[in-house]
């Protein structure tokens, strides 16, 4: 016969409190953003979202995030491969450094990039206050996602398949393209989606290095911040709702994609 899990007394009560906590801190506030954006009707919402400056900021956020996600797909897979299949001194240190962008406060990340690649940088490369700076900062903060998604899958990948392919005369590139890549694709896509979601809403690492120039380097989150500061709350809420929608779609995409086929029998 089948035992039920022992009842941890107070689980129901605990569950109720947990729900209240989640509601008060996350759900009710997010609902308030949606409510605020529609306060003066849908036309006002639409006008706020399609305002030229808002559109330019949203477009920059989406395009830059797309580029960053694509670059991460390549560099993340490359780094993961080197960390799993290659061997060199100091590999352990490099491996733990991958998580640094996650642990480092974003404002510090922005400042460090500005120190090296800004007007007073020691190497004479100055990308501050340009779109390149947006990409650079986003690449910094999203570095761990694809690497950490691909690494475990690559570790479990059976090298015998590759050896078999090689013995049948396949070259390195063919083996990578036909044997390794298909196995890694779900993990790469999951990492890319997370990197994209993170980039779309990124704020801290961008404020110092991009100069926040409207129609040029102002991303969506910085635009929202400006709207809040100048007391245009409905405009801020409207663009926030667009960002919320984008991240919800990405989150849903990840959870749908990771459900069927991707979950191998272990």
């Amino acid at each position, binding site marked *: 016969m089948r035992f039920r*899990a*022992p*009842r*941890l007394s*107070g*689980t129901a009560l*605990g*569950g109720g*409190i*947990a*729900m209240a*906590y*989640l509601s008060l*801190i996350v*759900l*009710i*506030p*997010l609902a308030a953003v949606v*409510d605020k954006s529609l306060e003066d009707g849908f036309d006002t919402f639409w006008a706020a979202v399609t305002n030229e400056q808002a559109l330019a900021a949203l477009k920059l956020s989406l395009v830059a995030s797309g580029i960053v996600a694509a670059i991460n797909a390549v*560099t993340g897979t*490359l*780094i993961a491969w*080197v*960390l799993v299949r*290659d061997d*060199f001194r100091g590999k352990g240190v*490099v491996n*733990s*450094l*991958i*998580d*640094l962008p996650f*642990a*480092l*406060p*974003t*404002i*510090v990340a922005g*400042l*460090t*990039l500005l*120190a*090296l*690649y800004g007007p007073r940088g020691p190497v004479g490369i100055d990308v501050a206050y340009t779109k390149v700076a947006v990409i*650079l900062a986003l690449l910094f903060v999203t570095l761990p996602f694809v690497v950490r998604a691909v690494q475990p899958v690559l570790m479990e990948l059976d090298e015998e398949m590759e050896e078999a392919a090689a013995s049948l005369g396949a070259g*390195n590139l063919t083996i990578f393209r036909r044997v390794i890549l298909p196995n890694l694709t779900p993990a790469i896509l999951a990492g890319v989606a997370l990197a994209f*979601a993170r980039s*779309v809403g990124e*704020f*801290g690492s961008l404020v110092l290095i991009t100069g926040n120039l409207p129609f040029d380097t102002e991303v969506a*989150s910085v635009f*929202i*911040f400006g709207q*809040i500061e100048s007391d245009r709350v409905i405009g801020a*809420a409207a663009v*926030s709702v667009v*960002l919320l929608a984008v*991240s919800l779609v990405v*989150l849903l995409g990840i*959870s749908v994609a990771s459900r069927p086929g991707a979950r191998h029998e272990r």
Partner: protein
Amino acid sequence: MSARGARLGLRTAALGYLFLLLAAPVGLIFFRTFEHGLGPAWEAVTTPEAQHAFYLTFVMIAIAVPLNTVFGVTCALMLVRSRMPGKALVNALIDMPFAVSPVVIGLALVLVYGNDGWFGGWLTERGIQVIFSVPGMILATIFVSLPFVVREVVPVLREIGTEQEQAASTLGASGWQTFRRVTLPSIRWGLTYGIVLATARSLGEFGAISVVSGKLSGQTETATLFVEQRFHQFDLTGAYAASMVLAVMALTTLLAMNFLNRRRTH
């Protein structure tokens, strides 16, 4: 021969990318901080304003992390062990803070807890100021660091199963005893890992706090806001020195993650 060349090429590319994006900028911050000797850097981070900023950051962590730990464990138990309706929904909502832009989080809290917010009137009547004050900043910190403990504890709970808990309760242990003597020891490494991640995230929070804090220097200014403020005051030494302290904390976090990762997998 060419396989070795390819391997070396890939290694160089991966390490070069990591050097240019991560190691060089962060290393430069350390150099810049001590460029003019230890004195100015020490002075910059020991001004009353700087000390208050770091103190406030610790207050945020000291309140948000324990609350999220209790919530996280309760919520994880509920998600794994109980059969509450709406579990799938809660499971999906827990990840929201990962996907929402920090600026949107700040706006959301203002819209509920600000003077004109949903609960603003009720709070003002009772003389409670949340926004532009420390409680709002704590709420923001809780919001951004909320999912970590849940996400680390859930897989461990799934893996350990319920046999030992059942045995304990068969032998007459109460729910609380079972939890404290059986469940808690088995989840301790996952739990600690979640706590470390939540601490790192709380330490570095910038965007949401910048919206809700009002940025009153010496009052509602955390360490990350202090970095930005020093930068805008053209006090680069101060900005670099405070950044370096935060970077050292981030590196400490990395060491802790590294250590715990090894524990978790053994």
